[in-house]
């Protein structure tokens, strides 16, 4: 069975961990045994932790690529041998990975990318947080596709999403991104490492074609070395990997498959954290570090007897529109704190009919709870 309950290969218990360490540990527990990356602030601590885990277990291979392009390419190569692979980077490095990210999407290669957001564009402020990559991680590469992006708000979730990202990636044969930010990646807080976790290992079928046109689900995956003379290609292809460079129908089928295998399982993939939504006139909706501020702001506002709820996206892509519409049906105003020009705000404006009020931070300071409280009180 692809789902297995396994004993974690590291010491369980409660430890003070930095976010970068927690996500590396989560990935290792999920079975990540190949890591490739290029040094970049604020993600560099991840390769350090991965090395620790690989060395103490005498398992796994890490590779410092000559750049981010080589790093993600090596992960894709490793993944086709059946090895769970991960890379981690920040904005400028993610920019470089984008073409091969598209390759991984198109060839349905499971792998995990951790994007530790820093302030951009360009070099920006390397050691300061931002949430400006919200749309980049979704629409980075050309063409039509779906991708899964998880957004942790704590070191605990960095551990858990390190596991979950691999599970989703293996389940749906899609590169999965853990989108975090400098604030949480460099934060230290207690993390509970459980004794056991549930792990999904891709369905390996040596007889299966490498690709699929199924409109509703992912298909089993053959591997290099199965003895079937596998054809893997980033060109439009038949199920058996034969290049088809001019037939529109084949391309249509592939794109429908890439989207359908995710969108038909959105209820399995999409996850939220909600408080007091049922009776709320107002809601603070957010994700990542800004949701920590938003949660505290909600607590303070509820103490003032304001009927405000809290809605946090743990999965930012795919976004489950129908669910959000239903949950917000009685909400009058939504306040959206985020460290960018209003990316989630624009999504919610597209999805919902109620008033959406962005609480943005374009500098690189984490939004303070009191700033949110102030905006809410001014707009009641």
């Amino acid at each position, binding site marked *: 069975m692809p789902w297995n309950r396994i004993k974690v290969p590291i010491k369980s218990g*409660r*430890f*003070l961990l930095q976010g970068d360490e927690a996500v590396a540990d989560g990935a290792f527990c999920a079975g990540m045994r190949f890591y490739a990356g290029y040094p970049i602030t604020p993600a560099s601590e991840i390769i350090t932790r991965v090395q620790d885990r690989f060395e103490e277990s005498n398992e796994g291979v890490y590779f410092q690529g000559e750049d981010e392009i080589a790093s993600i390419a090596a992960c894709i190569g490793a993944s086709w041998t059946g090895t769970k692979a991960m890379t981690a980077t920040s904005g400028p490095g993610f920019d470089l990975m984008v073409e091969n990210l598209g390759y991984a999407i198109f060839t349905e290669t499971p792998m995990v990318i951790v994007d530790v957001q820093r302030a951009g564009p360009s070099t920006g402020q390397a050691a300061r947080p931002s949430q400006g990559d919200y749309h980049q991680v979704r629409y980075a590469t050309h063409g039509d596709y779906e991708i899964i992006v998880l957004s942790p708000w704590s070191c605990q979730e960095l551990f858990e999403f390190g596991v979950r990202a691999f599970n989703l990636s293996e389940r749906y044969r899609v590169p999965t991104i853990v989108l975090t930010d400098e*604030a949480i990646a460099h*934060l*230290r*807080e207690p993390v509970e490492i459980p004794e056991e976790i549930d792990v999904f290992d891709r369905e390996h079928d040596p007889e299966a074609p490498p690709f699929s046109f199924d409109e509703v689900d992912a298909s089993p995956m053959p591997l290099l070395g199965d003895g079937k003379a596998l054809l893997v290609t980033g060109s439009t292809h038949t199920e058996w990997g034969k290049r088809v460079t001019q037939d529109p129908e084949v391309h249509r089928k592939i794109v429908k498959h890439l989207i359908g295998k995710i969108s038909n399982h959105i209820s399995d993939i999409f996850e939220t954290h909600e408080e007091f939504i049922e009776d709320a006139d107002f809601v603070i909706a957010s994700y990542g570090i800004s949701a*920590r501020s938003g949660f505290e702001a909600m607590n303070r506002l509820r103490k003032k007897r304001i009927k405000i709820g809290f809605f946090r996206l743990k999965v930012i892509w795919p976004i489950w529109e129908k669910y959000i519409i239903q949950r917000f049906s009685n909400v009058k105003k939504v306040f959206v704190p985020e460290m960018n020009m209003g990316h989630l705000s624009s999504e919610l404006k597209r999805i919902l009919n109620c008033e959406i009020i962005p609480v943005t931070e374009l500098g690189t300071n984490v939004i*303070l*709870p009191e700033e949110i409280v102030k905006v809410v009180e001014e707009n009641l």
Partner: protein
Amino acid sequence: MERLEVRYAGTGGQGIILLGVLTAEAVTRAGKYATQGSYYGAQVRGGITSADVVLGKEWISFPYVEKSDILVAFTSESLDYYVNSAKNGSLIIIDETTMVLQDEDELRSRYKFFKVPFTRVCYERFNSGFLLNIVAFGYILRHLKRFCSKEDAIEALKSNVPPKYIELELEAFNIGLSL
């Protein structure tokens, strides 16, 4: 919900972040909750380094210092930078040896203000300032009693410094405790 916001501020090389980590580690070992975040590098003028530690009995929502309950400053520059984010009447501790203050009376009127000779005691015993942060760790514990014990702090120390230095570190820690 109980929440104690501690900020250590100084300059690069003083071990400010380790001081923050040790505090958070001690509190975590005591079964309580601590979040620790740092600011460093060129983003703050003049090379100011600071470590935020927020302490609670249970999960902490906002993990950074908004208004500090305790501010420990090791340079005048960092004190100037952070004093305005200290709560009125909160605790401010400074290194008496190295810091020259223009407005001490004003600080005394607004805060619970203490001057501690961290650097001097370091030099007296070790002929160097390099264990400044560990002396301060020992000193600050008296204000964190609700969150961790001396034993928790020693465990935190042991897990964060190389074994060959532990004797020296414990000595510095004890000097801080008895200041």
